[in-house]
């Protein structure tokens, strides 16, 4: 039996992770869920967004969300007509600052920490390349959760190219820092001790010869230096990555997949659902977003649209006789009636497509929540609250 409200999940879990392909309204859904939980269920709720764009900040009316958590002022909630039972906090991931924190925490001494922080490879990895978001997002979630300041953390996942990348990130990180490959890569340094000895070691092994040819020796040296400094932090990093992974699989956590009923996002959502289940992550809910209203599929509407088209001229005459100035031109009335009928049928085609897509959903979790298509974009707390009510099926 599937439920249509997120409420049981919100009441029983400590972490709810929203995932889905780009453009389906993941960030907005996460924010609306957090808001609904804080307002309707109470407690201290944190919405953690990872998206580099400052979308949530706009939606929550905050000028800037940094790596620190900020409370959404009660006054702002009251202004939106909300009477919160709990407290709502927001935080946005600052990748660079989070990495730096991590290094400072695990480094054995300040010198090593600053050596790493100052390494050009480290700066490049953390600042420029997108994969580093994946891991640090989950790491930050772990950090926030273990501090225990929140009853519920709602997470908006990074828009990874491959939507499940972030799930693998902790394991990949553990492998990266603890793996034999890395030790192997830095071996000439560790064996040679002095820089001069390196050349001999490199030259004698086909692997290093090739690596030298591909990457250039300077780059290889940078890599090695970077990882040598990192060596003292391996254990801390690996342990941490494993703990992050355990938390994601824990029953206190649940995953929700957000999708619209369009072909491509839906296929992505199904892929997601499959992967979550296969990897034994708790897949708790699916949110169908921006769904067209049911009346578009009802037969009465279709019958009326057909009649309006066929009998437009006769109906227009009757309308013109009603005495309303805006309806006095029967030609115009007929045209408007036909246009309305055609518009209904156009949207009905899309609604039918959505219904078919929904019926084909193969893997359905405990909860399937539906958010209707709203005419206007959501950009304020009142709009988020409206979505929240749809997610929790509350009046």
């Amino acid at each position, binding site marked *: 039996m599937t439920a249509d409200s997120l409420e049981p999940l919100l009441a029983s879990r400590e972490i709810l992770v929203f995932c889905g392909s780009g453009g389906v309204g993941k960030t907005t859904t996460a924010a609306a869920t957090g808001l609904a939980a804080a307002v309707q269920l109470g407690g201290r709720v944190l919405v953690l967004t990872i998206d580099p764009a400052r979308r949530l900040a706009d939606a929550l009316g905050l000028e800037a969300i940094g790596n620190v958590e900020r409370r959404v002022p009660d006054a702002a909630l009251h202004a939106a007509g909300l009477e919160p039972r709990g407290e709502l906090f927001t935080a946005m991931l600052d990748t660079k600052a989070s990495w730096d924190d991590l290094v400072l925490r695990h480094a054995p001494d300040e010198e090593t920490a600053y050596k790493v922080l100052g390494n050009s*490879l480290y700066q490049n990895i953390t600042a420029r390349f997108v994969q580093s978001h994946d891991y640090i997002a989950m790491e930050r979630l772990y950090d926030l959760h273990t501090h225990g300041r929140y009853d519920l953390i709602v997470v908006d996942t990074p*828009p990874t190219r491959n939507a499940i990348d972030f799930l693998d990130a902790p394991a990949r990180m553990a492998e990266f820092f603890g793996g034999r490959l890395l030790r192997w890569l830095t071996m000439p340094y560790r064996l040679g001790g002095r820089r001069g000895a390196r050349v001999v070691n490199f030259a004698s092994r086909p692997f290093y010869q090739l690596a030298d*040819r591909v990457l250039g020796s300077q780059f290889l040296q940078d890599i090695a230096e970077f990882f040598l400094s990192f060596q003292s932090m391996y254990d801390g990093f690996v342990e941490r990555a494993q703990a992050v992974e355990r938390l994601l699989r824990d029953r206190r956590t649940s995953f929700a997949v957000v999708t619209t009923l369009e072909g491509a996002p839906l296929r992505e959502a199904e892929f997601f659902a499959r992967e979550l289940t296969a990897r034994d992550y708790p897949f708790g809910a699916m949110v169908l977003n921006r769904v067209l209203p049911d009346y578009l599929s009802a037969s009465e*509407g279709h019958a009326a649209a057909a009649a309006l088209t066929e009998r437009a001229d006769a109906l227009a005459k009757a309308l013109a006789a009603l005495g309303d100035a*805006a309806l006095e031109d029967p030609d115009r009335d007929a*045209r*408007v009636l036909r246009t309305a009928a055609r518009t209904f049928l156009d949207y009905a085609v899309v609604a039918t497509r959505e219904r078919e897509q929904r019926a084909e959903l193969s893997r359905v979790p405990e909860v399937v929540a539906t958010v209707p298509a709203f005419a*206007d974009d959501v950009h304020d707390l009142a709009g988020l609250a409206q979505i929240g009510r749809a997610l929790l099926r509350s009046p």
Partner: protein
Amino acid sequence: MTPAAPGAGFLDRRLVFFTGKGGVGKSTVTAATALLAAERGQRVLLVEVDAKGNLTSLFEHPPVGFDPVEVYPGVSAMQMRTEAALNEYLRLNLHVPVLGRIGPLASVLDFVATAAPGVKEILTVGKVCWEVRESLQGRADWDLVVVDAAATGHVIAQLDSPRAIQELVSVGPVRQQTEWMVDLLSDPAITALQFVTAPEEMPVNETIELVARARAELHVPLGSVVVNRVLPEPFTRGDEPTFEALLDRPPRQRLERDVGTGVGSVLEATRLAVSLRRSRAAHLTALREAVDLPLLYLPYLFVRDHGLRVTRMVAEHLAGELGL
């Protein structure tokens, strides 16, 4: 004859990247561009970068791999695979025959390709650039290489990767390998970065941001912005008050008596359509004001299916916008 729209020039380039926020129809526009170019006699290579594997479904063709497969007359498609690109690079540039034979090296390179940051990006862009260079030098047949590139944000890292690598690697073959890529990517006669967006708040905001970033951080020439899924305006300004009047009680009851209660649904749906269109028009205005690139408009298609028929419809609308 309709004059060719400004920004139409991207079909005359050799390498066109399409980027845009997820969900705006980037893949559909990319596929339609490939189809349009092929219909006009060009030999097109269509490259799917996001490993979703459903770009070829827009041609009703099963998924393809790293080796290009013709999915439509004149359109060959390939899916980017980092390991395959690395293998090819090593084979061609360093004359390393088959990776499997080098034992542990294979796993090291696999590790480098999947885990080391930046490597994926450079291999992706490198492979694409290589196909273009081969064509320019007469060793490959592509008149046009069309790339369904990474979504907003990632595309900057991707297209910037040759320069990023240059900052890291000051000498050696990789350095040389990235120099020609930077040249090719910054040549306005060869390359264009196209943006795909939809007239909705977030896609428009992200496009404005992305265009500004691309201008500031990349040397890649910018093409135009394709605004996809533009909803039709149901009523002219003159007809709209008449529609509003229909929503009042007396005319509505009158219609319900004559054609049944379904009239309410018809009017409700039309009202939704009018307000959706209206809220989107505001986003279009914001886009026009903030972005100084040519804009091309493609209508929302009220169709039931996906596939080749829809791709062709989009291509036709695109041709119309380009004045072809």
